[in-house]
C-alpha cells in the first residue's frame, strides 16, 4: 500500500496526464510543433551563403585573365555570370541578380607578366546587405589566394614572400549552419513547452474554479507544485527526445558528447523553464495574461538573447551582461558544445551551474508565492 501522501500525488499527476492527453492543443504544442520547427530550421533557415551569384567583367580577354576567371567559374561556391561592361553588371547588382562582381582590367595579363608587379582586380559588392557583402568578399579573396598559388606553381615562379593565411574551422569543419541551428532550436522548443504550456495550466485551474475545489480538498503547496511539474516534465523530455532523434537521425547533425550529459543538461534546463512558467501562472491566475507574460519572459529572450540566432559576443556590454540571467543562454551553449565539440566540462560545468541555479530560483519562488488560501 502506498502511503496516503504519495497516493494523492499520484492521483493528481494521473489527472493532469489525462487532461494533457485529452487536450489536442497540448499534444500539438508538445509533439507537432517541435517537429515542424525542426524542419523549418533544417530546411527553411540557412545562414550558409551556398553558391554566391558573382559577376565577372572581363576587360582583358587574354588566356591569363580567362584562367583567372575560370578559377571562380569552376568553384562550387560561385555561380558566375560573365560580362564585358561594368555598367551593365552594376545594373545586375542593383537588380540583385548578382551579389557582387569582379572587374578584370584590360592590363591584367600585362601586369601579370611584368616582374615585380601584381595585377589588380576590383571587387564590387552591395553594401546595403553587409553580411552578404562580407561573405562575397571573403569567398572572392579566398579563391583569389588559391588562384595565385596555382598560378605560381604552374609558372614555376616564386611568389612574393608574405603571410599566407590558412583558415580552418574547428568543431563544425564544413560550417554547415544546420549543425548549430538545430541544437539551438531545441532551446526554443523546450522553452515553449516548458514556459508557455505550464504558464497556462495553473491559471486554467484558477479560471475554471477547480483550484478552489482542490484547495478545499486540502491539496498542499508541495502537492500543487509536484502535480503541475511531473507530467509536464515527462512531456517535455519526450519532446526533447523527439527533437534529438530528428536532429541526429534525420538531419544527420553530428553528436560528439555523451547522451548522459545531454539529458542531464536538458532536464536541468527543462526544470528552469517549467519553473518560470509555473511562477508566471501562479502569479497571474489568468490564462491570457500568463501566455503574454510567458511570451515576453521566456520565448523572446530565448530567441533573441540566448546566442542561438544572434551572437552574444557581438552584443553591447549591458545586453551581454543581461544575457547571464537568461537560462536559455546556458542551454544553447551547452547544446552547441555537446553536439559540435563533445563533453567539454569547462564549458558544460558553468552552463549546468547556471541552469541549476535558475531552476532552483524559479521553483523556489513558485513554492513561496503559492498560497493555500485565495488571497
Amino acid at each position, binding site marked *: 500500500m502506498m502511503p496516503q501522501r504519495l497516493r494523492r500525488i499520484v492521483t*493528481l499527476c494521473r489527472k493532469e496526464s489525462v487532461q494533457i492527453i485529452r487536450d489536442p492543443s497540448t499534444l500539438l504544442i508538445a509533439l507537432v510543433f517541435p517537429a515542424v520547427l525542426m524542419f523549418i530550421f533544417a530546411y527553411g533557415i540557412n545562414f550558409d551563403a551556398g553558391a554566391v551569384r558573382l559577376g565577372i567583367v572581363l576587360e582583358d580577354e587574354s588566356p591569363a585573365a580567362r584562367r583567372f576567371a575560370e578559377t571562380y567559374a569552376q568553384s562550387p561556391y560561385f555561380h558566375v555570370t560573365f560580362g564585358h561592361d561594368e555598367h551593365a553588371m552594376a545594373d545586375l547588382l542593383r537588380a540583385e541578380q548578382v551579389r557582387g562582381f569582379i572587374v578584370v582590367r584590360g592590363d591584367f595579363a600585362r601586369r601579370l607578366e611584368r616582374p615585380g608587379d601584381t595585377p589588380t582586380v576590383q571587387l564590387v559588392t552591395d553594401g546595403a546587405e553587409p553580411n552578404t557583402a562580407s561573405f562575397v568578399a571573403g569567398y572572392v579573396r579566398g579563391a583569389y589566394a588559391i588562384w595565385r598559388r596555382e598560378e605560381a606553381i604552374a609558372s614555376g615562379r616564386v611568389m612574393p614572400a608574405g603571410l599566407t593565411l590558412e583558415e580552418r574551422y574547428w568543431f563544425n569543419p564544413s560550417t554547415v549552419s544546420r549543425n548549430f541551428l538545430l541544437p539551438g532550436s531545441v532551446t526554443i522548443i523546450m522553452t515553449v513547452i516548458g514556459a508557455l504550456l505550464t504558464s497556462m495550466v495553473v491559471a486554467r485551474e484558477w479560471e475554471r474554479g477547480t483550484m478552489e475545489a482542490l484547495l478545499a480538498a486540502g491539496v498542499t503547496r508541495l502537492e500543487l507544485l509536484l502535480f503541475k511539474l511531473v507530467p509536464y516534465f515527462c512531456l517535455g523530455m519526450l519532446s526533447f527526445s523527439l527533437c534529438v532523434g530528428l536532429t541526429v537521425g534525420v538531419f544527420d547533425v553530428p553528436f560528439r558528447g555523451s547522451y548522459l550529459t545531454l539529458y542531464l543538461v536538458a532536464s536541468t534546463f527543462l526544470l528552469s523553464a517549467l519553473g518560470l512558467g509555473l511562477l508566471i501562472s501562479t502569479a497571474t491566475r489568468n490564462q491570457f495574461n500568463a501566455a503574454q507574460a510567458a511570451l515576453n519572459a521566456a520565448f523572446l529572450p530565448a530567441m533573441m538573447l540566448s546566442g542561438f540566432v544572434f551572437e552574444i559576443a557581438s552584443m553591447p556590454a549591458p545586453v551581454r551582461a543581461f544575457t547571464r540571467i537568461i537560462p536559455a543562454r546556458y542551454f544553447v551553449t551547452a547544446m552547441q558544445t555537446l553536439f559540435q565539440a563533445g563533453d567539454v566540462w569547462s564549458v558544460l560545468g558553468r552552463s549546468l551551474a547556471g541552469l541549476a541555479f535558475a531552476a532552483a530560483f524559479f521553483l523556489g519562488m513558485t513554492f513561496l508565492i503559492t498560497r493555500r488560501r485565495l488571497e
Partner: protein
Amino acid sequence: MSALAAPTDASSVIASTHGLSKTFPKADKPALAPLDIQVRGGGVTGLVGPDGAGKTTLMRLFAGLLAPTSGSIRILGKDPLRDADTLRGSIGYMPQKFGLYEDLTVRENLDLYADLKGLRGDARRDAFESLLTFTDLKRFTDRAAGKLSGGMKQKLGLACTLLGTPKLLLLDEPGVGVDPISRRELWRMVGELLSQGIAVVWSTAYLDEAEACDSVVLLNAGKVLFAGAPRELNANTRGRVFCLKDFDGSARGALKQARRDPASMDGVVQGHAVRLLERKDARLDVTRYGLGTQARLEPAAPRFEDSFIDLLGGVPVVDSRLAKVIPERPRDDAVVIATTGLTKKFGDFVAADHIDIEVRRGEVFGLLGPNGAGKSTTFKMLCGLLAPTSGEARVAGVDLRRSRSEARQRLGYMAQKFSLYGDLSVHDNLEFFAGAYGMTGKAVTQAIERMLEIFELRGVRHTATQELPLGFKQRLSLAAALLHGPEILFLDEPTSGVDPVTRREFWTHINGVVERGVTVLVTTHFMDEAEYCDRLTLISRGRQIASGTPDEVKERAATADIPDPTMEDAFIALVAGDTA
C-alpha cells in the same frame, strides 16, 4: 443513504461566527461586516443577496480558503484555518461552477475527489454506488463532465462534495446557470441529506429560494440586513403587499401612475397586474391613479423580495428620460417580427422546431425555456447571427434569409454577459459601438451625448467600464444597444445575477423605450423577467409548448393543488408535462 452521513443530533450548532468580518487588501469597504450567525444541523441556512453581497466571501471563510480580518469562526468546535487538516473531512464545499474538470469523465472526477479525501476500499465503493444512485448519474459515468447539462453538472458537483461524509455542506450558488426544474431537483436531494443531520449552507441570488430555507441570512453589500427564519422576515410586510388589478390601459402605464403615489415603496409589473408595496406609515390610494373606476387593490401574500426591498427602504422612483429623447414610433400595431416554421438543425439535432411567433410594435415579447431548450438558437436566428435551416422570418420588414445585415442595422442587441470592453472608458465604448453600427460624424457625438444624458453616465464618462458598479454597467450596455435608434431591442437574459433594485431600474428604462413604440424581444429563464412580458412563448426541447400572455400561461398550469400558480410553477408544470 447510510454512506452519506452519520446522523448527528439535529438542530445542534455545527458552525458559528463571532464578530466575523473580512476586508480585502486595497478595498475601501469591508466585503463582509461583523457577522454573528449560527448554522444548525438538519437545516438549510440560506445566504441570500445580490451579486457582491458577500455570500462567496462568507463561504470561503467557512471553507478555510480565506482568513478573517477580525472575529472568528468555529466549525464543530474547531477553527477552519488552524485545524484545517482535522476539519477537512467534515466540510464539503461546492464552489461556483461546481469545481469539476470538464475534460474528465464523471467517473474520473469522482475518483479524483475520492482519492483526495482518502476514501478507499469498500467505503469508496459504497459511496460511489449510493451517490451515483442518489444523483441518477449511473448512466453517464463515462461521459465527460463538460458534456453534461447544467443540471447534471450540478448533481455531479454535489456528489463530489458529498464524498467523505461531510457534516457541513457549503453550496455556493448551486442554482446559477441551472433551470428551475433542476433547481427543484437539487432542493429535493438536499432535503434528503438533512434527515441525516447534515448542516447545509446554501447561497443564492434568487430571493424566492430563500423562502425554502430554515433560516436565512440576508446580505446586501457586505452588511447583514436580516438573520432569522424567513417567515419572521415576511411578517414585516404582511398586509402591505397588494396587486393592482382591473385598471384601464397597460400594466406599464399603471405601474408608472402607482409609483407616483408617495405611499408606494416598490412596484413591479406582473402579467396584467401590478404588484405594489405600501409604506408602513401611509396608505395607497388607488382612486388617485386615474386608471378607471374598476381599478382596485387586492391584498397579496408577501414574498421575500418584497421584504428585501422593504429592508432596503424601498426603491426610489426613477423616471426614464429615454421617453423624452427617443423619437416616437407610429402606433400602427404593425407586425415587426414574424416567423413561420422557423427551424434550425445541427446535424440530426433539431435545436428549434417550427417556431411560429408574431410580435407587434411596442410589445415586450418573451422567449422562455430551460437551458438547452432552443430559445438562444431562436433568438440568434432572429437577430441574424445564425442562418435558419428552413422556415421564414421577417424582422422589421426584412426577410432574414435575404438580407441579414440590413435587418441587423434596425435592431439593438444586449448580450447576456456585458459585451463591453472593460479597459475602455464609457465614452470610448459608446464610440466603438456607434462605429460598429455604421454611424459617422456628428451623429456619433450627438448620440453619445444623448445616451450619457439619459442614462446619467456623464459623471463616469472617462471611467474604465470594468471599474463601474453593476447597475452602471447594465445602463451602459443598454445605452450601447440603443445608440443607433433601433426599432427592435433584443435582450438576452438581461438581468441575471442582478440585484432587485438594479433590475427594477433597468425595467423602468425598458418600459420607457417600449412606450415610445420600440419592440422588445427578451429571452430568459428568470421568472421575474417573464412577468414583464406582454406575451411570451415557452420553448422546451426545441418546440413551443405554450404561448400567450403571462396570465394565460399561468392559467394553463393551474391545478386543484395550485389554483394560482406563479410563473415558476407554471414553467415547471408545463415543461414537466412536455418531457414526461
